[in-house]
């Protein structure tokens, strides 16, 4: 995977995450709601940075789709939390690919490393304390 392919794939993941966190937040309350909104803001910021990195390379960032179909119906707090977990696992995978494709020390590598750390921490929180065992190597291709 080239760095441009990894950037476009990462942008696609963040487009989905932006939509998904908005959908999930509508079914959450209290701390999980606040966490979903914080994740949404972070996702939008990273989406803009990824788009900038593509523009810097003379490329047009792929736009978001008007809507996305979640992998399972989101009808309550439990299914919304499960969607949030899946969004972070997707982010972990995209961050891994970004890191592997980027050059040592460059901005793309830095972005990927930070993103992977954030996504793994969020995934652990959505999974709940000890409820679901997270993979030992977040983002590792299966």
């Amino acid at each position, binding site marked *: 995977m080239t760095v441009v392919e990894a950037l476009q794939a990462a942008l696609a993941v963040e487009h989905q995450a932006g939509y998904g966190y908005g959908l999930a937040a509508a079914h959450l309350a209290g701390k999980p709601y606040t966490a979903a909104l914080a994740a949404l803001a972070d996702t939008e910021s990273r989406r803009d940075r990824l788009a900038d990195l593509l523009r810097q390379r003379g490329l047009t960032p792929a736009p978001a789709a008007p809507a996305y179909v979640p992998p399972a119906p989101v009808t309550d707090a439990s299914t919304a939390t499960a969607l949030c977990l899946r969004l972070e696992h997707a982010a*972990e995978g995209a*961050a*891994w*690919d970004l*890191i*592997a*494709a*980027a050059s*040592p*020390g460059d901005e793309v*590598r*830095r972005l*990927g*490393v*930070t993103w*992977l*750390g954030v*996504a*793994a*921490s969020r*995934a*652990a929180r959505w999974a709940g304390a000890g409820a679901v*065992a*997270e993979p*030992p*190597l*977040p*983002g*590792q291709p299966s």
Partner: protein
Amino acid sequence: MADSASMRSARVTVSRRTILLAAPSAMVVAGCRDHRPVKPDPDAAAVAAARDTEQRLAAAYDAAGDARRRDEHLAHLQALGGVMPTAPPSASDPATLTRTSAPLLQSAAIEAYAGPVAAVLASIAAAHLAAR
């Protein structure tokens, strides 16, 4: 049937020829390899440091009877191509080592020469951050 048999026969001939041709070239390559300077692995020091951390953490959690955390750090060690020594060094405070090693692993991931090595180091750092 006859056509099929001849095709099988032709494949065997090609296969044998390939083996016979490959052997002398392998010897030439082997002869050259001895005289080639060995390039140092630019990521060797970072990987060795990460292995040492994972050995200490796995040993500490093993001593504490925390099999889940021990296995997680053994998985990290395996991803780094390492194994547990017979008498591994142990961390006196594994929670602190987990926390303090995360930014070091992230820095090593940013500077790693090889992309796959960078991804493994960053993933281990991410797991340490998530374990807080």
